């Protein structure tokens, strides 16, 4: 499932995309716990921001893995 993102923002509804430079794949995590791979950042943001359309969250679909946890508060 690719690398876990560094998590810095601690809001309830943070979307994350991780990319390893030198590779073509991006992986996005919705705050609902769902994640998906893509080769196109435009398409991936659209999928993330469309929540709950297309990925209603863990309630109805099995989550692919634990959602990343914030490491520390930013701007606190």
């Amino acid at each position, binding site marked *: 499932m690719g*690398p876990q*993102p*560094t*998590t*810095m*923002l601690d*809001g*309830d*509804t*943070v*979307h*994350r*995309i*991780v*990319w*390893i*430079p*030198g590779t*073509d794949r*991006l992986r996005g995590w919705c705050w609902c716990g769902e994640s998906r791979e893509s080769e*196109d*950042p*435009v398409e*991936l*943001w659209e999928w*993330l*921001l469309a929540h709950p359309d297309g990925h209603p969250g863990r309630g109805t679909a099995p989550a692919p893995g634990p959602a990343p946890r914030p490491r*520390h*508060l*930013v*701007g*606190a």
Partner: protein
Amino acid sequence: MTTTSFARNQWYVAAYGSEIGRELFSRTVCGESILFWRTEAGEVTAMADRCVHRRFPLSENPSRLDGDTVVCGYHGFTYGADGVCVSVPGQKRVPRTARLTSYPVKEQDSFVWVWIGEKDKADEALIPRAPWLDSPDYTTVRGMEPLAARYGLLVDNLLDLSHETYLHGGYIGTPEVAETPITTEADEKAGVVYVSRHMDDAACPPFYARSTGVTGRITRWQDIEYHAPCLYLLHSRIAPVGAPGPRADGSDPDAFHVEVVYAITPETEHSTHDFWAVARDFALDDQEVSDFLYDSNRTVVLQDVVALNKLEQVIASEPDGTQELSINIDTGGLAARRILKRLVEAGAAESVAAV
């Protein structure tokens, strides 16, 4: 309804506090010409830079400050610090509507912030912070460059550090940057985009080795924190490999920090005030380090200015919606654009609702 590409009902940096004193000072923010001055008590005031009588700019000679009033240089209309006209020439009665639009202002972190939008919505708690800039624990160098390009181009530029390699070849890029995962986070509600690149084991660039005394391998973090629409922070952290990380209370005594701050303030639809500052928490009294950081950051800013001025001319000559192509490096920029679009729409909708 006026449709602009500016996000209204937002705070913007209008100036450094050091720019405003007992002289009349004018700056255009989001298309509005604003007059700034300091009262005798030292408070910054902001009001429209156009006399209500015949529109003479109050920042132009021979307009002048007289105590805590501004006297228009054309026929002498006189205004108080709240923008209300207190006297007009040749008559006793001052027309009741004779007042300049005043703007909420807040001086904080060495900046003068101004609220563009409906006054009753101005909440100082919404102003994002850059506390390094006037902290005694940091030494700061700063500047401001005029940019003849729309502010969105500067947002795009700053959210993608990969352009370092090309536009700023030799200045700030390092080889490890290329293999380190980059995480982009977007908090739509808070209007924040965060792009982090944490290198766990990197060579120490010569500048840091010299100025911090660190020898050997380092962990190097570069974190972009963009608070739409105006404030951009680049947190740069270096520490010897194996040193403890930041503590839960936010302090981080085992690392060295450089905080690069930009305020991206729209002037007009096609021009921008590009405020930049570099604060550090090491070598505080070392003038050579200050000079190096000033020269290198200003060089980088000016390279961007030249490129973006050119890009503005191209974009302005093309029809709206001309196709672009986004790739992985644009992940952060796309998130910022999305949030800006939402803020512009929200500001426009609120002003319609308020009519």
